[in-house]
């Protein structure tokens, strides 16, 4: 039963983010799924164990529902008239990929700070000379995913 509940809550979070551009509050998720907030908290903990959510210490506020960010970042994506924050450059491309819609990305060069703009179509971004630098090895991404 918890699997079914977790799926419903996961969909409420992700589809809420996709439709509104912001991650829903736990109370909104509880109302959407017709359960108590405590059930949402318990489910969030399980979803975090499965690395589908990153939670703030209160256990009810979502910091990340990858690729969506719960806090403002330097990686802004606009798609379908909705604005989103992505967790990183990878997630900025992942939002159009998850939505199956074209998108416009406004970001910043991690080395120079230069503002960057990128249009992403259904088949990806156009040609560019940009590089995506990964400084943390894959085996170490999750222990500090906010830094990664």
């Amino acid at each position, binding site marked *: 039963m918890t699997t079914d509940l977790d*799926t419903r809550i*996961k*969909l409420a979070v*992700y*589809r809420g983010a*996709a439709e509104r551009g912001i991650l829903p509050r736990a109370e909104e998720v509880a109302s959407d799924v017709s359960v108590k907030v405590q059930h949402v908290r318990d489910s969030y903990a399980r979803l975090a164990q*499965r*690395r*589908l959510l990153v939670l703030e210490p209160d256990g009810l506020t979502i910091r990340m529902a*990858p*690729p969506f960010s719960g806090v403002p970042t330097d990686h802004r994506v606009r798609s379908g008239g909705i604005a989103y924050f992505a967790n990183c*450059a*990878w*997630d900025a*491309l*992942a*939002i*159009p*990929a*998850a*939505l*199956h819609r074209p998108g416009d990305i406004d970001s910043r060069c991690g080395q120079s700070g230069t503002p960057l703009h990128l249009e*992403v179509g259904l088949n*990806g*971004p156009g*040609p*560019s000379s*940009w*590089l*995506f630098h*990964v400084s943390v*090895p*894959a*085996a*170490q*991404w*999750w*222990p500090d995913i906010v830094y990664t």
Partner: protein
Amino acid sequence: MDQLWQMAVAWYSTRLDPESRRPDASEIRGIFERIGLEGDFWDPQADTFRAS
């Protein structure tokens, strides 16, 4: 950027679907290998980096 797009699609294109989940370690390794990212740095279970 093409590799990054392929990673984004492989990881997230089904994220809004009911059955969606994060790829497991072997799937992650396969995604990286398919787009030419190999070696310990890209191995999600590499002992070199003391995977958790």
